[in-house]
């Protein structure tokens, strides 16, 4: 979280935090995990009423940010959600809402934008394909025109909350490159297969498209602008993902500090041992660096700065790997208790690990960064 928040941002953050603590406590997260169904739709709708899907939508469609910098406002929510490993499709729904609102054909999607903002509907993002990563160049799903319709054929992978979404933003290959379409999940030919993942409440699916027929009005973007639009979507997603990871790590770190002062060995608290203090000092440094680089990426993407692509890949490559390092060392500092199912730290480690590998691994982002900086 950035240190200098406006009064409105502080208020917004406080409301979100209170809501999450009351309605999505870790106990609740564990209940949802037991039930195996992902997030609670009514809960999501109430979150949407707080503005969780409105910040990246233009005023034309009723969107509104808190501070004038919608993405930085959203990062506050993502961070609070990270602190409680909250369920909910915050990243994907916002990416789709922003994409629809920024699309040349936004007017055709105004009803869906409205539904997403109210929480009545949920949308997810279908980009990645099996073994092809998050590079849009790997797209093989085909979009072929047939009469007045477009027919989609192919498979998308790691589609978040697909089984709880009404819409998907699908990236497809067509005659003149890539295009994106808004596709209702209920259409014939769409088969959603939930995958078993390690996050207990954030579910991912593989989605098959067997000749799925959509009207031409489903188009969100095509031609030369698609690549830029996809880059923008990736940037928004990673800023929110990194903000969430920072929240995840910060909470684990706070709990670990508390543990170290409560736990005595050899007649002294763990926090009095220099060997352990020095490890904790390193963690504090990494945590503050993660905050800093995430905030820098958020500012750059929000301002559509020329540095945005670079800073996003820096943030993901840094935060993505350091987050799991920190949490694993916190597990070590806790000892045996932290590898039990009852201890909450594994919920955080699960979320951080899934975030590490989705939207590009740290390694993939270093490779991307090399290209960006001209290696």
């Amino acid at each position: 979280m950035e240190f200098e928040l406006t009064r409105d941002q502080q208020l917004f953050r406080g409301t979100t935090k209170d809501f999450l603590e009351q309605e999505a406590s870790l106990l609740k997260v564990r209940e949802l995990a037991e039930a195996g169904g992902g997030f609670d739709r009514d809960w999501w709708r109430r979150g949407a009423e707080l503005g969780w899907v409105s910040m990246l939508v233009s005023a034309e469609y009723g969107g509104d940010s808190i501070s004038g910098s919608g993405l930085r406002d959203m990062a506050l929510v993502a961070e609070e959600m990270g602190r409680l490993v909250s369920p909910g499709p915050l990243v994907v729904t916002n990416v789709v809402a922003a994409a629809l609102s920024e699309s040349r054909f936004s007017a055709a999607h105004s009803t869906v934008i409205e539904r997403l903002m109210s929480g009545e509907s949920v949308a997810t993002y279908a980009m990645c394909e099996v073994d092809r990563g998050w590079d849009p160049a790997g797209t093989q799903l085909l979009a072929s025109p047939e009469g007045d319709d477009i027919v989609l054929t192919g498979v998308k992978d790691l589609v978040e909350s697909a089984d709880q979404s009404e819409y998907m933003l699908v990236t497809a290959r067509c005659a003149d490159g890539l295009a994106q379409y808004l596709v209702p999940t209920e259409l014939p030919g769409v088969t959603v297969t939930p995958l078993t993942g390690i996050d207990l409440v954030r579910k991912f699916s593989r989605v098959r498209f067997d000749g799925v027929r959509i009207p031409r009005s489903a188009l969100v973007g095509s031609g030369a602008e698609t690549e830029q639009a996809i880059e923008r979507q990736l940037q928004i997603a990673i800023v929110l993902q990194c903000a969430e990871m920072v929240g995840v790590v910060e909470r684990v770190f706070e709990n670990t500090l508390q543990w170290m002062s409560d736990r005595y060995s050899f007649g002294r608290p763990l926090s009095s041992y220099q060997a352990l203090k020095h490890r904790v000092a390193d963690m504090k440094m990494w945590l503050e660096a993660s905050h800093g680089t995430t905030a820098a990426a958020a500012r750059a993407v929000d301002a559509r700065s020329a540095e945005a692509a670079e800073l996003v890949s820096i943030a993901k490559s840094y935060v993505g790997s350091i987050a799991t390092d920190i949490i694993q060392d916190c597990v070590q500092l806790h000892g045996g208790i932290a590898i039990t199912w009852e201890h909450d730290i594994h919920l955080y480690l699960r979320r951080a690990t899934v975030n590490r590998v989705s939207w590009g691994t740290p390694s993939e982002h270093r490779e991307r960064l090399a290209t960006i900086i001209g290696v």
Partner: protein
Amino acid sequence: MGSPTEIDVIEDIETFRSRAREWIAANLPLAKPVTGEESESADYDEAAWARARELQKLLYEGGFAGLCYPKEYGGQGLTPAHQYAFNEEVAGYEMPLLLNSPTFSICGPTILDMGTEEQKKKHLSAMIRGEETLVQFLSEPGCGSDLAGVVTRATRDGDVFVLNGSKIWSSWAYAADYALCLARTDWDAPKHRGLTMFLLEVNQPGIELRRIRQVNGNEEFCQEFFDNVEVPVSNVVGEINGGWTVASRQMFHERNSVGGGSQYVSGRLMGPKRRSPTAVMAEIARRTGRSDDRRVRELIAESHAIGRVREHLIERVVAGMRTENLSASAGSIIRLFGGMGHLRQTEIAVEVAGPHGTFSLPGTMGDREIAETFITRQAACMGGGTTEIARNIIAERVLGMPREFAADRDVPFKDVRRSR
């Protein structure tokens, strides 16, 4: 004459920026392009120091010296944001970078915080005019991290103190006019309570100065020997026996400076001939046909990311301290990152460059600078306070963990066991 209600309005950043840009272009020479063939000592030999003073004078005459120092001491009374804007505008021009540390970013702020009115008037303005450089006489052969254990003796004799002892690791002492020198004035008090800080004139009888040659051939460090050196009582900074308060403040400024978070640095901190490590590595990778090697590409990207993340961390920690969301000791976080980031970056450079960064033809430096930097890399984890001390500070003062046991706490210093 201004009206009695005249308010000193601070120039807005963008107006300042364009005024600075115009002045810089008209008055400052461009920095010499870096070829990699420069001799190491050219950075800090006598000619380099004379040039630095000359450039400082030029900045002073143009009204761009001591931007964040108060006007009454010869500065411009501007904000850090003005200094950062100036730094951006002055990139690529020749600047007196040698004066940044310790003169402007460590000694200056310490005098500003702790000095008497006379000391501030005399030393700060001379420094800003380019007429005085200052260094630190802190570490001794027998103590470094445990700075409060210094044994240089200062004995009062009427209006003067008489100093005997030795100081070491003082950067640039051979080019300095004054030093902030920490000495022991009371041996019966516990170690932190018997120290006094002096503004000591460097070029005077009784001070013998030797230069220390480092493993990379660099000779910026010095050792000094004091034989009955006299310093007037009026040159005490802070209180007599209150030297630890001054030294703590000084180390606070030092950590900020080393970490890259000081607003008193003008232009870059130092390194007039440093090429961007990313650019050097990318160039070597191209030259050796490895630009497509995924492993090499990732390493270069990682090194680049460390540099950028360091900037982001500095920005965050500075904002955190300013808004009191982080304790004033949080400067140690950027100090630690600076050291550890440097270790990883120099390792990556050696890995990527291979033999190209380790050997050069006779009489040239070329990319051998990479391995020369590597073999002295630990210095980045020592100077400005070791990374071990930084970790102690982060754990104890930023995070509030219990303090380490100290065998010398509350013991009269004369009874404390010391190195033989």
